[in-house]
Each structure stands twice: as structure tokens, then as C-alpha cells.
């Protein structure tokens, strides 16, 4: 045993030695230790450097509020984890931890220079200084800050661990396994309610489980022994799920809660066995009982951040739970009774201890106990300074003036190697406020406590502001019984004897002899903000607590202000002369403690990240060397390179083949909506801009759909299959939204229409064959069918049979070529496709992908919704006036087409662009200007589609340009990084203006 491991406890197994390394050096601890308790048992307090001044910092607490002991765990590239609190990580064999934020090393670091120049780093320093000059930012400030600031390293390799999600429902969820949580869970579970109890530590019992002080007696037993017995009874209840190592992450409305369970984090690397690392529980609870406890506050005085300054109750936990003393010569500095429990514990183990108390007296049992033991107490005193660079060596104390606003008398210097501080307790109201609950400020305890209005959750124990053992137990019992409608519980006749605090005093910022500007009284230990910073922010005009927080960065470190928020508020209130409670608090946002990304995403990684949709022809594309692009969730063939063709070469070949002979496209991904009902034609009249009533059965028509604001929303060809039966196609990406929109109108605006919509996108596969030889290929596929223009004209459809399977042939064209689309039930898609390829062999039928499809339609000036439009284009802007019915009284978006804004002549309008150099291809998205010398240069539009057309042997582009309709022939410029490209506005139909090819 080391000289600091002075005690044997039932929580740490001192027969099982565990070795670990910290900053490369090997140490030993025991099974049951945390990294922090093991370090302290080796006499190590210094564990990091502060963020701004790089001051040496030591372990300060024993829980999730820890601001200083932030470590990097494991140095493997893919398993390493930054910002782990040493106070929370359970020690395991082979654990490798290192300190953070202390480049080049913990004991000597360059950032410490900031400490020497700290008078020049006040609040908002970064905002003020690094603003100017601009050129310094990239080359000087940023690299410097990055080098000396960062908080640990993120893994450079993918996370190999498995994470899990689990949904759970219960009658009662109890958050927190301290004494009030255990009482609550027992009452609930014993009354046949399905109960879940979650506790973030590995052992139940909270701070009571190591409370062996004789002044806290329940049913004639010491409170820890009584609780031990309760826990063993609790574990026998079978309608109770007990989850330790499980912390609440978020408490959402309607009692929906997220909790993170650590499953294998505490195991040595070789014993994890590929198990799930963490599980995120998604719990819907009928009733929630929050028993989250309270966090001890520090005290704010000059140089209150030295290693060896530790919260008093944490000192007690290290002693009574882990058997480790944080020092051999202790001083306790307090404003309340709870720290006396620490003093008595230390004294009983033979460790030297003195007490400095800002109060004038306290007449409670525990204080009398300390006095009887002969512990020296300095009443009405405060610490005004501390000494020792890497570890505290001594303190200076002075008497407080009558009102506590000043110090009087002489300085008294006292030697010590540990200073335990206690500024009272802050109820953990985070869960309550996350769920939407409000807070009240309670003067007596200078604390925010829940203002309970919800019928579905309550707060019990110290998170509810009950601090004395007796009120914790009795109030919990009464409250839970009422909450769960239970008349009697096993705790009704409990007898409790405990010390009660009668004298209370709180000073947010303790006074000093030296002026405030020269003290370093830290409030946020990790972010290095001091009382001085907060006062400066107030002087500079910040009033809102949220603004002060951001300006000074108080409460914005990894502990999210668990230790600092109350003091920041207190000092603001004192300085501004307002009452605490009128300022409000900053918002407590989830998660309460950091969550891993792994736990958030669970199994939704890699191929499970998103749905992948493949057409039934997909395998053929793969076998034929297709490169794919993602269109929504669909995988679509992008191009089919032959040999070593690149994208450009393949697309040039495919495009030429489609116009010279025959091309084939997998069009299965287009959205398809089956529309039936006696009002189907009327419905189409209302949703499309053009007229539908007169479309004959067996005919197809292109339709344009607008939003109610008049902007183009979607387009596609709709076929009339029967009197009351249509098949609508939509864009691939728009299918789901179009269906939703149509359903919305049908259900809410036009419920009188007899129309039924069914999504059939996945039901049919589509092979689209185009090119001058397409008709010959169709004839081979359907020898009995008459494909003459008279029998089967453009924009019509016919039923057909292939291999005894029914299919539909639509003669429609998105390329401007003679073109047929064959729709067949999806399961026959691949065989249909293979038949087409076989029949087309003699015409060198060429499969083409989306890139060639885009090029072919651009040659014809056909728009792609979402590429040439962006939600701000009307059909008039697109020069598609021809499709907007003048006769129809109404359709979606009609009224908006003549709003004052939509009839402006200088709106961006669709045009064609030709580059002066026919080999110059414009970049899609490139900006267009009319004057190069004008400053600032005015952007009048941008390129939406751009290709080199092999069929025209020149570069072509579509663009939207302000007032473009009237600019035909005008010279414009596309300025690029290194040159300006000269372009001429042209017609946007580049090829076959007369539409001869569709009947070729």
C-alpha cells in the first residue's frame, strides 16, 4: 500500500492489483478504483493544464462535474477517446491514460507563458485581439491557438466498437440510485409497477453508501449499513430492472428519456470480447422519479485552483469509499456543515485536519462532534491566498468583517498539503428543466429548486432541495406514495436521527485585501474564467446571463458549468445589485454528460446508415461495369466506361450512339403514382398547369406541377390508361414528396373528389430505348405489333406481351429522339432489359447512364427540375408559357403567376449559353456577369447545366440570367479564377428545333 492508501473499504478489493499508465509512467491501483482514486493513491494530483493560462490543475471532484482531470484514454489510433473524466473511468488492467492540453508535457509547458501574461488576457480577449489584422488569423493566431489549446485528439481511424439501441417501456423510471432513488424504486416495484432504476456509477447507494458517521442513524443503524440492507432487498424484486453504469442523457417531453449504458468500458481491452460497448436506452415511462442528487459547490477566492484543492465531499468519498487520503495535512474550508463529516472522517483515520469556516458558529450535532474531537476550527474566517505551484503548500486566512463584505485583522499562514472546500450544494435540476420544468430560487439554501407542475414526474432527495437525511427519507416516502397513489409503504414508520444544519451563510465571491483586478478567483476552472472576467463583462455592458456566459466562456467547458454556473449567477447578481432568481439561469441542454457519437447512431453505420434502393436491373449494370451515382436513395447507373474510358469519354460515346443508332436507359427509378377514380381527370387539371380533360385514353402528356407560390415543383409524363385511370410519373428524387403533396390536397382541400392514389414506383421496371433504330428494335421485341406512326404515334401508349408477360409501351421521349419506354412488373425487369440488349445487338444498342441522359436532354433544352430550377423559377421564367393553361380557372400555383413579383421582367430566366471558344466547357454553378469592370461586380445569373455536345461538336450550356429572355445574341462573361470566359446568349434548344427526330 502507498502512504496515501490508508484505509480498507468494501468497495475496493485490495487483493486485486491493477496496473495502468499515466503519461507513459506505470502505476498500480486496485480493482474498484477509478483512475482518479488510483492516481491520488499514488500521490498524484497534477493531471492537466487549464485551457487559457495553462495553470497546473489537479483532481477536484469525484464525479461527472470534474473540470480538471480530463484525460485521453488509449493511444491506439481507432480506440482512443479524448475528454474522459478520470473521476468517472473505472480502472482496468492495462489502461493507458494521458493528460491533455499541456503540450509539450504536463510538467513543463509553453502555454504556461499565458499565465505570466494573464493580466492581458481578460474576458473576450480572443474576440478582441484576434479580430485584427485579418491576415494574421490564418498564419499566426489560428496555428498558435490550435497548437496550445485543443482538448485532446479525436481518433484518426473508424470506431471498431459496436453500439446498440434498445427501446423500453415502464410504469416508473427512477433516475439515480442514491438513498432517495432506492426508496422510490422499492416503493414502486413492491406495488407491482414495472420499474427501472438507473444509476451512473457501478454501485448503488450514492453518498449514503459510505456515510458511516454516527450522527446519521436510520432505524438504529448507521445510514450506510441500513442502506446496504435495503439494496440487497431491492435486488430481489423481480419487476425491477436495475441498471448501473447507466446515465441519463436526456429527458424529453411526454416522459421520453434517453439513457446511456456503459457495457464494456470498464473491462480490460482483452476481455471486451467484441461485446457491445455502449447501449442507448430509449425509455418511455408512465411516471418518472428524478433522484439525481446534488453537486457540491466550490468556494471562490484568490488562487482557488491549485492542485490539492478538492471538494470536501469528494475528499470524504476518496477516503471512505476508495480508502485513499488526498493529503496528510488537511485543511477544510467551508460555509456549511457537510464538510464537517469529511473532517471527522479524516480525524478518525488519524489524519491531521483543521477547519476554516466563514460562519461565526454552528450548533449542529456534527459540528459539536468535531469540536469534541478537538479539531481546530477557525470561525468567521476566509482563505485569502494559497501557495504552491504544482501542489498546494500553504494558505493564508483572515477574519471576515461583520457583514462579510471585507476582511479584517492579520493574515494567518497555515501549512497544508490538501485544501478541501465546500460552498454548499447545488441540486441537479438538469433533468427537471430538460423535461420543461421551471425553477424557483430558494433563499435559505441559495439554490434553484424544481417548481413542480407536471403530473408525470417528480423530483426527490437533494435534487429537490432536500439536504438533511431526515427530510430526504421522509419527503421521498410521502411524495412517491402520493405520486403513485399508494397508501402505505415500508418506510412509513422509519426512525431517523441526524445532524441538522441550523446556521447558513453564503458569499459568492469571498473578500480579499488586494483589489479584484489582481486576484485569480476562478469560477470556471477548465475554461479559466475568473470573477474578474465576469465583472468586466458586466462593465462592458453585457446584461443577460446567456451573453455573459458566451463572452467569458464561463460554463462552456466539457463540464458544462456544473461547478461554475451558480457562482457566475451569484457574482452577476451581487455586482448588478439584483436578487438571485430574477436573473434566471442559463439553459440546461441535453446531454447531461457527454454522449459518444457511437451511442447516438447505434447500429446505423456503414451499410445500415441509409436505405439503398436498387432497380431490378441493377445486377446487369454491375456486371457491365457501370459507375453509379446516388439519386436520393437510388443507385442509378451514371455511365458505363469501356476499357479505360473516363467519364467524359464514356458520355461522349454514349451520347453519340443514342442519336446515331440506339441507346437504352434504366428509367425504373422515376416515381410512379397510380391515379384512379371518377374525378381523376379533374384532379389532374387542378394539380398540373396544363389541361387534362381532353386527353384521350391511351395517350400520354407531359405535365408541370407548381407549388402554390407559382414555382416549379415537379414534372413528368402522365398516361391515361382508362376512363378513370392514369399513371403519373414524377422525378426520381421528388416521388415521395409529390405523393405527399397530392394526398394533402385530396384530404384537406378537395375531399369531395373521388380519387385514389397509390405509389407504384417499385412495382414496375422501365427500359427506355431511344434513337433512330429504336423502332426496329421494338419490332424485333414485339413482332406482332404495328409500330407505324399512324398506329402508334408519339405520346401514346399500348399494352403488349413479351415472353407471355404483360407490359406497357409508352412512346415518349426525354431525349428528343424517337423513343419507347417499356414498363413491366419489376420481377421481370432484368429479363426484359436483357431481351432489349439482345434485340438491339445488331444496332449496337448502347446502355447509357444519367450523365448521358442529362446531356441529351440539355441538347434539346429540356429542363431537369432541381438542376435548372431551384424553387424560385416559374414556368414563365423557364420560357414554358406554352404549358400554362390560360383557359383553366384554377390550378395549384396559378394565382401566384401574376403576383407583382412573379411578373417582373428582370427575374432570372432560362437561356442557352454558347462559349466563344466551342471547346470551352463552362462550370455548372459558375456566375455570369455583363460588365467586368464594374465594382462590385454584379452577378446576373449562373450556369445550371453544361456539357460538350458530341452531336453538335461544341460546348453548350443552360443558364438562368436576369432578364435573359430579351438578351438573345448578347455577349456576357463567366469570370473564373484565372480567366474570363466570353459567352453569347442563345436559344436554349440547341438541337432539332423542329422536333423532326421524334418521328425519324
Amino acid at each position, binding site marked *: 500500500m502507498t502512504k496515501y492508501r490508508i484505509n480498507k473499504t468494501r468497495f475496493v478489493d485490495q487483493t486485486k492489483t491493477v496496473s495502468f499508465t499515466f503519461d507513459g509512467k506505470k502505476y498500480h491501483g486496485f480493482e474498484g478504483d477509478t483512475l482518479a482514486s488510483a492516481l491520488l493513491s499514488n500521490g498524484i494530483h497534477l493531471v492537466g493544464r487549464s485551457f487559457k493560462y495553462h495553470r497546473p490543475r489537479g483532481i477536484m471532484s469525484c464525479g461527472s462535474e470534474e473540470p480538471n482531470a480530463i484525460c485521453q484514454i488509449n493511444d491506439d489510433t481507432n480506440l482512443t477517446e479524448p475528454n474522459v473524466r478520470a473521476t468517472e473511468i473505472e480502472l482496468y488492467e492495462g489502461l493507458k491514460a494521458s493528460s491533455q492540453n499541456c503540450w509539450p508535457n504536463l510538467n513543463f509547458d509553453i502555454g504556461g507563458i499565458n499565465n505570466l501574461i494573464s493580466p492581458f488576457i481578460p474576458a473576450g480577449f480572443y474576440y478582441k485581439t484576434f479580430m485584427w489584422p485579418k491576415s494574421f488569423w490564418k498564419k499566426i493566431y489560428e496555428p498558435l491557438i490550435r497548437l496550445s489549446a485543443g482538448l485532446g485528439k479525436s481518433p484518426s481511424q473508424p470506431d471498431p466498437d459496436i453500439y446498440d439501441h434498445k427501446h423500453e417501456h415502464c410504469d416508473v423510471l427512477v433516475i439515480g440510485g442514491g438513498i432517495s432513488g432506492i426508496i422510490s424504486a422499492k416503493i414502486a416495484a413492491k406495488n407491482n409497477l414495472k420499474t427501472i432504476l438507473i444509476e451512473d456509477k457501478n454501485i448503488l447507494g450514492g453518498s449514503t453508501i459510505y456515510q458511516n458517521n454516527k450522527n446519521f442513524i436510520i432505524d438504529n443503524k448507521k445510514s450506510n449499513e441500513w442502506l446496504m440492507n435495503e439494496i440487497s432487498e431491492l435486488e430481489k424484486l423481480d419487476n425491477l430492472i436495475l441498471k448501473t453504469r447507466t446515465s441519463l442523457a436526456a429527458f*424529453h*417531453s411526454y416522459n421520453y428519456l434517453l439513457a446511456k449504458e456503459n457495457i464494456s468500458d470498464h473491462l480490460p481491452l482483452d476481455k471486451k470480447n467484441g461485446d457491445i460497448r455502449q447501449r442507448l436506452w430509449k425509455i418511455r415511462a408512465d411516471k418518472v422519479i428524478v433522484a439525481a442528487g446534488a453537486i457540491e459547490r466550490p468556494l471562490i477566492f484568490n488562487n482557488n485552483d491549485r492542485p490539492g484543492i478538492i471538494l470536501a465531499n469528494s475528499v470524504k468519498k476518496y477516503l471512505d469509499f476508495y480508502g485513499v487520503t488526498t493529503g496528510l495535512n488537511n485543511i477544510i474550508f467551508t460555509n456549511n456543515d457537510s464538510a464537517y463529516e469529511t473532517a471527522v472522517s479524516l480525524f478518525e483515520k488519524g489524519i491531521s485536519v483543521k477547519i476554516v469556516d466563514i460562519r461565526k458558529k454552528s450548533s449542529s450535532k456534527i459540528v459539536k462532534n468535531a469540536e469534541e474531537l478537538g479539531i481546530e476550527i477557525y470561525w468567521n474566517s476566509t482563505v485569502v491566498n494559497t501557495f504552491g505551484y504544482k501542489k498546494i503548500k500553504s494558505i493564508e486566512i483572515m477574519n471576515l468583517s461583520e457583514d462579510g463584505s471585507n476582511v479584517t485583522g492579520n493574515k494567518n499562514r497555515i501549512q497544508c498539503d490538501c485544501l478541501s472546500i465546500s460552498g454548499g450544494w447545488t441540486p441537479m435540476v438538469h433533468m427537471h428543466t430538460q423535461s420543461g420544468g421551471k425553477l424557483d430560487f430558494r433563499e435559505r439554501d441559495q439554490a434553484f429548486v424544481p417548481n413542480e407542475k407536471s403530473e408525470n414526474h417528480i423530483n426527490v432527495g437533494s435534487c429537490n432541495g432536500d439536504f438533511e437525511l431526515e427530510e430526504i427519507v421522509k419527503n421521498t416516502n410521502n411524495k412517491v406514495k402520493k405520486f403513485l397513489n399508494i397508501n402505505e409503504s415500508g418506510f412509513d414508520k422509519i426512525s431517523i436521527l441526524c445532524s441538522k444544519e441550523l446556521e447558513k451563510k453564503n458569499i459568492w465571491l469571498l473578500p480579499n485585501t488586494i483589489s479584484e483586478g489582481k486576484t485569480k478567483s476562478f469560477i470556471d476552472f477548465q475554461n479559466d474564467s475568473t470573477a474578474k472576467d465576469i465583472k468586466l463583462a458586466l462593465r462592458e455592458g453585457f446584461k443577460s446571463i446567456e451573453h455573459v456566459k458566451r463572452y467569458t466562456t464561463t460554463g462552456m467547458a466539457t463540464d458544462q458549468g456544473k461547478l461554475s454556473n451558480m457562482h457566475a449567477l451569484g457574482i452577476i447578481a451581487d455586482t448588478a445589485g439584483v436578487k438571485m432568481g430574477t436573473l434566471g439561469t442559463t439553459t440546461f441542454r441535453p446531454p447531461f454528460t457527454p454522449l459518444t457519437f457511437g451511442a447516438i447512431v447505434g447500429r446505423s453505420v456503414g451499410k445500415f446508415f441509409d436505405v439503398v434502393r436498387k432497380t431490378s436491373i441493377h445486377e446487369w449494370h454491375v456486371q457491365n461495369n457501370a459507375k453509379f451515382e446516388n439519386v436520393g436513395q437510388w443507385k442509378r447507373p451514371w455511365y458505363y466506361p469501356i476499357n479505360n474510358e473516363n467519364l467524359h469519354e464514356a458520355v461522349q460515346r454514349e451520347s453519340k450512339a443514342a442519336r446515331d443508332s440506339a441507346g437504352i436507359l434504366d428509367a425504373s427509378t422515376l416515381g410512379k403514382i397510380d391515379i384512379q377514380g371518377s374525378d381523376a381527370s379533374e384532379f389532374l387539371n387542378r394539380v398540373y398547369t396544363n389541361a387534362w380533360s381532353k386527353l384521350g385514353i391511351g395517350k400520354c402528356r407531359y405535365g408541370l406541377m407548381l407549388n402554390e407560390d407559382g414555382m416549379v415543383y415537379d414534372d413528368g409524363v402522365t398516361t391515361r390508361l382508362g376512363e378513370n385511370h392514369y399513371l403519373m410519373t414524377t422525378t426520381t428524387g421528388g416521388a415521395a414528396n409529390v405523393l405527399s403533396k397530392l394526398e394533402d390536397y385530396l384530404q384537406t382541400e378537395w375531399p369531395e373528389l373521388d380519387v385514389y392514389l397509390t405509389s407504384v414506383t417499385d412495382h414496375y421496371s422501365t427500359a427506355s430505348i431511344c434513337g433512330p433504330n429504336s423502332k426496329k428494335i421494338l419490332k424485333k421485341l414485339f413482332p406482332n405489333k404495328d409500330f407505324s406512326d399512324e398506329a402508334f404515334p408519339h405520346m401514346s401508349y399500348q399494352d403488349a406481351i413479351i415472353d407471355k408477360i404483360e407490359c406497357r409501351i409508352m412512346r415518349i421521349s426525354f431525349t428528343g429522339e424517337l423513343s419507347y419506354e417499356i414498363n413491366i412488373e419489376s420481377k421481370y425487369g432484368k429479363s426484359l432489359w436483357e431481351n432489349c440488349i439482345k434485340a438491339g445487338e445488331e444496332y449496337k444498342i448502347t446502355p447509357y447512364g444519367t450523365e448521358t441522359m442529362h446531356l441529351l436532354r440539355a441538347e434539346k433544352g429540356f429542363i431537369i427540375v432541381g438542376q435548372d430550377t431551384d424553387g424560385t423559377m416559374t414556368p414563365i421564367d423557364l420560357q414554358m408559357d406554352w404549358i400554362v393553361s390560360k383557359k383553366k380557372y*384554377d390550378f395549384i400555383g396559378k*394565382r401566384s403567376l401574376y403576383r407583382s413579383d412573379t411578373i417582373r421582367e428582370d427575374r432570372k430566366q432560362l437561356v442557352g449559353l454558347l462559349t466563344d471558344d466551342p471547346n470551352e466547357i463552362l462550370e455548372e454553378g459558375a456566375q455570369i456577369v455583363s460588365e467586368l469592370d464594374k465594382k462590385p461586380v454584379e452577378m446576373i445569373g449562373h450556369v445550371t447545366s453544361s456539357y460538350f455536345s458530341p452531336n453538335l461538336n461544341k460546348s453548350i450550356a443552360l443558364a438562368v440570367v436576369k432578364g435573359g429572355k430579351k438578351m438573345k445574341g448578347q455577349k456576357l462573361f463567366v469570370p473564373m479564377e484565372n480567366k474570363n470566359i466570353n459567352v453569347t446568349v442563345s436559344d436554349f434548344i440547341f438541337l432539332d428545333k423542329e422536333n423532326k427526330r421524334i418521328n425519324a
Partner: protein
Amino acid sequence: MFIINCPYCGERDQSEFSCGGEAHIVRPKQPTELSDDEWAEYLFMRKNIKGVQFERWNHAHGCRKWFNMVRDTSNDKIHAVYKMGEKPPLI
């Protein structure tokens, strides 16, 4: 995460639903008769109330029915759900 009582399916998790904004805005029957301002009022103007608000919701990952819901936006308490076409309850 609310629990929403779909008038057609019963209680379901909020993740199955999508919100369609303010309820009881009727599409004008004769849009052509409206001035730009009147049309803009229908098209763009929506209330954003802190307190009791009447909203359209769609059971998108369920029965796909639209319905109306009365929700207090300050505490997410749902006061009522009712089918399209039904009269809003007095809250």
C-alpha cells in the same frame, strides 16, 4: 417526443408523424378574385403562437391521414385531435 393520438390509429410515437403547420387555413375557392395582398395573406402568413395553437398533422409513417391537433407550444401539451372537416373544439 410526444405521443400523438391519431384519430384513425390511436396512440403512436411522434416519430411516425409530420407537422403541416397552422390548421384551418382554407385555400380560397376563387383565387383569381383576390388581390395580391389577399393572396399573399393565404400563401405566406402563418401564426407562430406561444401557447395554444391549432395545427395540421399527418400520420406519415402510419395511415397517412391528415388530421388536426390542438397543441400548447409552450409545454407541448396536446389538448385535442380531430379529423379533417370536423369542427375545432373550444379550448
